[in-house]
């Protein structure tokens, strides 16, 4: 059984997607959070911005690097977790719930087919770690 929540889908860019009909809530995985180290700030695109699969929806700055957040799906941002701007510490303890980042009204349901289930994502993470 995977160590990643089984109700989510995952991208190879280390974001998760919670699908509720045509709305997808997005955040980063705990693998991404651990690789980033201490998170200093999060900058997210605003509500009504359009995002495209494989392109940035924000930027995260940590003690190690500044990293673009890559959208797992395309669509319009309908909500942004502004609590993260005040308390990025949430990302170190609860990336899958309180640490959500944006919610997107998706354009294309078929893009979800590009995402990984928890077992496949875990295998992918193992491969990535094996390359280190």
């Amino acid at each position: 059984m995977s160590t990643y929540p089984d109700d989510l889908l995952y991208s190879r860019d280390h974001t998760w997607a919670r699908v509720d009909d045509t709305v997808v809530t997005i955040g980063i995985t705990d693998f991404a959070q651990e690789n980033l180290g201490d998170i200093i700030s999060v900058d997210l695109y605003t509500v009504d911005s359009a995002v495209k699969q494989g392109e940035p929806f924000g930027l995260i700055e940590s003690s190690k690097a500044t990293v673009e957040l890559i959208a797992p799906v395309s669509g319009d941002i309908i909500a942004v977790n502004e609590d993260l701007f005040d308390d990025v510490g949430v990302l170190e303890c609860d990336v899958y719930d309180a640490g959500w980042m944006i919610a997107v009204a998706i354009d294309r349901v078929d893009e979800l087919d590009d995402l990984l289930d928890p077992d496949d994502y875990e295998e992918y993470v193992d491969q990535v770690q094996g390359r280190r």
Partner: protein
Amino acid sequence: METWRLLSFQRLSGAENMAVDEAIFRETATRGGEPTLRLYGWIRPTVTVGYSQDLEEDVNRAFCEERGIDIVRRPTGGKAVYHSTDLTYSLASSQHRFPFSADILGTYRVIGRCLIKGLGKAGISAELVEEGRAPGRCFEEAGCFAVPFRNELLVKGAKICGSAQVRGRDCFLQHGSVLIDFDPVISLQIMGKDGRDEEEAVRRLAGAVTCVSRETSVPVTAERLVPYLGSGFEELLNIRLLKGDLTGRERALAERLITEKYGNRRWNERGRL
């Protein structure tokens, strides 16, 4: 043997340097290709501030203006860096190219070892900080060189090179500066502290930071250090650096970034466009 592109040494303004670095990074992200190493200098004294750093809080803008020191915001995070005679490097690559990976610290380690090899050729024995101290609340911490961090370079316990990294999809840009000279007083003044009234701070900073001119018996300029650092990469990674130029697309993107971003007061002051 794998080849990388090496861009010829140039001294440019802060806006030009950041725009060229970002243009190479963006083009590497979209078009792939070989890694690019750039070794460069600064045509005017310049303070670069980190992507999300508070300029008003951390930099004495009036002092910089009075002294003719430019201020530009980097695409990378971290603290303020004062550039004058230093040799700055930037490396942009796909994270899938050997010897890189998605591992952020692993990338710092690889590049750090290449720089150590290169500095060794110039007679400077540097080492990689594996576990740095966490940034404390000392007031000097607004400056990058005041805070040794993991995988940065020290000589006899004093920092000589600080680096920062930005990552996009499957690629990264890492840049950093090797100090040729270091003046703790002006560094503290730039950080908004009057070094003349803070002797203890000057003493601490002078002990925490070193530079090439202090570590070698012969005068070394940024230009003279270029071949040493280049061969450090070649020998450690068994690659060959081939001199090249910016592509037309990179040049056009750099020009656009100068106009729209790094030459734009709004970006440099607030980090927003």
